[in-house]
């Protein structure tokens, strides 16, 4: 079985995000970019299925700027076999919407015919949590989101999902789209020899128009602002003072 794993190039999760003063967005110029952490978990999940003999090829895809090929090389160094870059914009500040990404991925699924797509549950930049569900809808496939356990058994996949209040286990018919949550696995680091080898792995480049997809956004961003700051309060000197303040001043206990 072939697996397709979409990966997104996002601002590194350790970088403090700065909102531009003119309200036009978040400053991404000269900022460290990395693979979306949830997507690393998705790549790792695919590699583990390959190591277990359940998958024979892992194709990673990124939809965005040309530099997203760095992200794809990282996935190849981790253990993916082949990469496809869909160059959808030349502006790092243009975020391709999940609906457009899902349409691009649908076209690629039709070309590549994978039996499974594994995605991160959300990207840490737009926090939309949508691409996997949208792809599943467009393909008419089953979906299993927020996976913390994944087992493939023949024509179906059993997935344990992180839901409000606990865990839910469902069984979905293959082909399926699975989106992964934090606790599914701990992604490996790419070793230096594997990073060298990844440079020789195939990486194709396409455009959305090659695939017949219009990526024009449906949402226009009016403004991007800093969240309202919360004023700092006071330091109390003792537990007694804290209890007193909560009872008399705040009146919450």
């Amino acid at each position, binding site marked *: 079985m072939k697996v397709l794993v979409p990966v997104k190039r996002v601002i590194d999760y350790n970088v403090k995000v700065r909102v531009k003063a003119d309200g036009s967005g978040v400053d991404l110029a000269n900022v460290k970019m990395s693979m979306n952490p949830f997507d690393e978990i998705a790549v790792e999940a695919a590699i583990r299925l390959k190591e277990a003999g359940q998958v024979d090829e892992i194709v990673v895809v990124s939809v965005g700027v040309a530099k997203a090929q760095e992200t794809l090389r990282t996935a190849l160094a981790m253990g993916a076999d082949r990469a496809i870059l869909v160059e959808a914009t030349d502006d790092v500040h243009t975020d391709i919407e999940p609906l457009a990404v899902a349409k691009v991925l649908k076209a690629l699924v039709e070309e590549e015919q994978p039996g499974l797509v594994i995605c991160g549950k959300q990207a840490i930049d737009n*926090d939309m949590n949508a691409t996997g569900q949208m792809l599943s809808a467009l393909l008419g496939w089953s979906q299993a989101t927020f996976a913390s356990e994944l087992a493939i058994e023949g024509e179906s996949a059993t997935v344990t999902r992180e839901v409000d209040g606990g865990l*839910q286990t469902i069984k979905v018919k293959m082909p399926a789209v699975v989106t992964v949550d934090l606790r599914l696995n701990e992604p490996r680091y790419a070793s230096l020899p594997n990073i060298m080898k990844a440079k020789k792995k195939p990486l194709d480049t396409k455009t959305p128009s090659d695939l017949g997809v219009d990526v024009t956004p449906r*949402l226009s961003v009016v403004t991007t602002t800093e*969240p309202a700051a919360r004023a700092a309060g006071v330091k109390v000197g003792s*537990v007694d003072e*804290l209890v007193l303040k909560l009872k008399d001043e705040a009146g919450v206990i």
Partner: protein
Amino acid sequence: MAVLLIAEVSGGTLAVDATAKALTAAKAMGDVTVLCASAGCGGAAEAAAKLDGVSKVLCADDAAYGHDLAEPLADLVVGMAGDYSHIVAPATATAKNVMPRIAALLDAMVISDVTAVVDADTFERPIYAGNAIQTVKSADATKVLTVRTATFDAAGEGGSASVESIAAAANSGISEWVEDKVAASDRPELTSAGIVVSGGRGVGSEDDFKMIETLADKLGAAVGASRAAVDSGYAPNDWQVGQTGKVVAPELYVAVGISGAIQHLAGMKDSKVIVAINKDEEAPIFQVADYGLVADLFDAVPELLEKL
């Protein structure tokens, strides 16, 4: 404008708080019809009909909707979407699962975690784990969105909407429920609790986390945890408060041994009163705390238990 609000129904019972908060947001967009879809959802539909500002309640009672599977619920909603300008749900795990599927089937872009309704087409939502707030305007014919309940007040009761049963949609049967493992607890539900007591990495172990639970029980509070505490195995994932966990806004939030990473702050900074107990006086949590106590939690929490 006609709005379809998908009620949060769990085990046939209406999640009143989440639904009533999303209702407040939905009312700002137009006339609200509530959909209750579940197995045995008559009671939930009756409860939804009593919420103030609901015009009509639709009840789709079918086993296919009993376990919140995305595919059958999406097919049901898409089949009735033509009557509505907006499809809205509280941003629960169920809605996050199904709403993007509904949006894609309607060729619309979903708008997740809306924190403010500017007008019927324009919404605010947090991005970058709450480090920025984006205002977006939708060009789609049908707006599909989830509402972050913590930022809206719950609509009151006093309504008397009619309840209408509707037929279930065909079920493709491509997914099936196997089991739920939901922790049984007498404590209030995390996202609607009046008081939340949360522990962080500073608590140090799963055993010591019991102390956080004891403090919560003393206050009649729900228990929360930071991502660091969850990742360290001190607390289960469904207790996680933060951008990747639950977003809460209780009357009182007590953060014990939590440094205050931005991803945690994103999940609790709308709380009315925040108390932080941490031995590191430089911890960022003190920048948002109304009352900060610089102390070793292993001294402060037992003392607090004694004096409350």
